[in-house]
């Protein structure tokens, strides 16, 4: 492969995106960008630190594994990100930001003109200022009002109403009347009020969109892209990396130890064991021989095997689960958000009030013009300006606080639903437990053994080695210097340290009584066998106790066998159902739902996907399968289970603040509406009431800053 100098490039080169969760500082940015640019085949790398991503421009002949190797060569762990569909949403936030900027600009300038009108400008000056205001306001309303007009129109067409309907009606009528006033040299024009209303409402919308984007970026940085593809044997004995979606039946995949399968198939060569926990929840590895049927998403543990593909893409066992998930998630889309529920009550009340004041003044003998002015004042005063901010302001503050605590909330509706759950169902493997083998007896090893152990473990990607590596790195052990490292698939890692032969691998004798073990041999020393088990997450018991205190009863629904679920259930003191298929988990949730419960589902595996989608709210750990993370409302980082309780507590506090905000916003209206109906409201009072109530609502929301503690 020849390195090409960037300035000679004429053709468009492919760009690949990678998530690099490990970047933490300025040094990491420069290390990645300048380090990658020096690697052969890579033209240029650009880091986005906020999203923890790097975009690599590379030569067309570079394959995914080569690029990943290049990044790990610079010292970072990376995962490929497939071209995601998130761009459309990102654009929405940008469009809202632009609309908000325009409204903000217009608001300030119109306010400048309005202040002179309020302070007593009359005659030609006032008319001129009104005309100028109209000149600024009309294009602004046409541009910045679009999100509301569009949403209101689509709701009306379906025969429904939402928050945007009263907003659109209010904005249109007020603008029309202000224009009429301007034409007829009237004293009051409400252009400032209308534009200010749009500005505040857009702020709320934009906050909502930003929150969703941030969480989505966070989640997509975590997605592991379970087997984005496979090495496929080509005619003529060559191999090539083929992406998962391009795999076809009758291809032969070479699956290395530590790799996940990208398609269903039959083993044609090699003997190994497979970890099915992602698919079924079962923790015991299943041994496979020539002729065994293996499924996409399962992990090859021991030795490389050849797999003859029988089904790929939409035909795999995973795809069946995906279909179940899709059906299950339909219930969630029926949920109506708090703001829209409020609007359903609020909108008719406001419109009736405005119509009644119009009629009342007409009956009382005022002209239609004066009556209409009063009605518009009522509309402007009651327009749900603070209401539009009440929910998103609180939710974005709490989402930010939770994010700092390592909890990603997908969107505002997730927070609302999370606050209402009253029953928790947990998956076992990977949710209550870590879902990965953790060494249990490392304390018995001498410090020399530990440092050799770490050095050897780092040389292998076997799950047991990863478990050792994680545990020892956490202890701060320094790795010994080893040379001549070689890994023998299915047997272990061999090397020399200080001239002595050392190895880490499968125990010679069958010392493993139950479960997994791995043996360290150092020449001239007795061997050390490390035992492994899948341990409970830290603080699991404390979290369940906290949930109990919050009024949530917990239980386990697991796909694993009763023998492995039993000890966990006993240790935590909760009931458990075992050996459940994805469909049965769904049924269990449906039964509780029928009994009137709002179920919180906490799970991680592919087999939990449908249940996560069906739960009233759902939480998944960051170690979960992609399907699990996509289906869950909340994703939490780290090993401890505590975030489950933290998230629920924060969600409930948010609902509390949101309710307060509603009361504050409506309270303002209750004070101002009689003034409006009596005809005393001028544009000045309307502007003061509107900005005042918005500020109070935002200030109240800021109290949630420490909600994640």
């Amino acid at each position: 492969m020849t390195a090409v100098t960037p300035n000679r490039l004429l053709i468009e080169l492919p760009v690949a995106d990678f998530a690099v969760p490990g970047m933490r500082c300025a040094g990491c940015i420069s290390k990645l960008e300048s380090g990658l640019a020096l690697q052969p085949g890579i033209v240029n790398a650009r880091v986005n630190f906020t999203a923890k991503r790097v975009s690599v421009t590379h030569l067309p002949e570079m394959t995914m594994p080569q690029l990943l190797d290049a990044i790990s060569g610079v010292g970072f762990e990376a995962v490929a990100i497939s071209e995601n569909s998130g761009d459309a949403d990102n654009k929405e936030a940008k469009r809202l930001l632009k609309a908000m900027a325009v409204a903000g600009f217009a608001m300030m300038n119109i306010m400048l003109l309005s202040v002179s009108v309020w302070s007593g400008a009359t005659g030609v000056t006032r008319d001129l200022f009104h005309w100028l205001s109209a000149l600024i306001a009309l294009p602004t309303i046409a541009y910045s009002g679009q999100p509301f007009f569009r949403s209101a129109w689509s709701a009306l067409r379906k025969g429904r109403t939402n928050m945007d309907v009263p907003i659109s009606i209010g904005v249109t009528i007020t603008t029309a009347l202000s224009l009429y006033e301007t034409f007829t040299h009237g004293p009051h024009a409400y252009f400032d009020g209308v534009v200010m209303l749009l500005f505040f409402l857009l702020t709320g919308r934009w906050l909502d969109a930003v929150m969703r984007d941030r969480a989505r970026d966070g989640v997509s940085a975590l997605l592991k892209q379970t087997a984005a593809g496979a090495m496929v044997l080509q005619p003529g004995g060559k191999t090539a990396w083929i992406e998962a979606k391009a795999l076809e039946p009758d291809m032969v995949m070479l699956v290395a130890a530590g790799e996940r399968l990208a398609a269903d198939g039959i083993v044609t060569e090699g003997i190994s064991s497979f970890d099915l926990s992602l698919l079924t929840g079962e923790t015991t590895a299943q041994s496979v021989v020539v002729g065994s049927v293996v499924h996409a998403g399962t992990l090859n543990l021991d030795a490389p095997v050849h797999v003859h593909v029988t089904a790929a893409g939409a035909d795999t066992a995973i795809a069946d689960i995906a279909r179940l998930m899709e059906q299950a998630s339909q219930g969630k889309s029926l949920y109506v958000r708090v703001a829209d529920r409020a609007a359903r009550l609020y909108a008719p009340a406001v419109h009736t009030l405005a119509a009644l004041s119009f009629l009342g003044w007409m009956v009382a003998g005022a002209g239609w013009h004066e009556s209409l002015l009063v009605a518009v004042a009522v509309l402007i005063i009651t327009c749900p300006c603070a209401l539009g901010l009440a929910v998103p302001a609180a939710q974005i503050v709490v989402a930010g606080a939770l994010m700092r605590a390592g909890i990603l909330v997908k969107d505002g509706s997730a927070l609302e639903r999370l606050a209402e759950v009253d029953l928790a169902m947990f998956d076992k493997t990977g949710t209550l437990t870590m879902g990965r083998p953790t060494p249990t007896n490392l304390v018995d090893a001498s410090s020399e053994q530990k440092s050799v152990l770490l050095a050897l473990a780092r040389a292998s990607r076997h799950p047991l080695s990863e478990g050792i590596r994680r545990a020892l790195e956490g202890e701060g052990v320094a790795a010994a210097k080893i040379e001549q490292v070689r890994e023998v698939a299915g047997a272990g890692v061999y090397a020399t340290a200080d001239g002595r032969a050392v190895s880490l691998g499968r125990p010679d004798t069958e010392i493993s009584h139950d479960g997994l073990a791995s043996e360290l041999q150092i020449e001239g020393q007795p061997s050390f066998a490390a035992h492994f088990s899948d341990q409970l997450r830290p603080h699991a018991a404390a979290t369940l106790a906290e949930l109990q205190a919050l009024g949530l009863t917990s239980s386990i629904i697991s796909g694993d066998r009763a023998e492995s679920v039993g000890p966990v259930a006993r240790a935590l003191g909760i009931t458990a159902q075992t050996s459940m298929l994805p469909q049965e988990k769904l049924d269990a949730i449906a039964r509780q739902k029928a009994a009137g419960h709002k179920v919180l589902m906490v799970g991680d595996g592919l087999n939990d996907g449908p249940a996560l989608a069906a739960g009233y709210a759902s939480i998944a750990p960051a170690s979960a399968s992609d399907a699990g993370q996509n289906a869950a409302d909340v994703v939490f980082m780290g090993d401890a289970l505590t975030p489950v309780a933290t998230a629920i507590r924060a969600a409930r506090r948010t609902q509390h603040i949101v309710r307060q905000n509603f009361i504050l916003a409506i309270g303002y209206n209750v004070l101002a509406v009689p003034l409006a109906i009596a005809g005393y409201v001028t544009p000045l009072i309307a502007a003061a009431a509107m900005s005042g109530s918005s500020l109070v609502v935002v200030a109240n929301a800021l109290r949630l800053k420490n909600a994640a503690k």
Partner: protein
Amino acid sequence: MTGLALLIPVALGLGLLGLAGFFWSIKSGQFDDADGAALRILIDEEDEL
């Protein structure tokens, strides 16, 4: 009034200038990586070459 005739267009023009600048900065991706921009200032380019 003559003062107004001058000052109002000036005020609006300056505001529009700011708005145009903001639009341009969104479009050119300056807000895409706010945290990264804060850190890049610390990178010592000389050492990398």
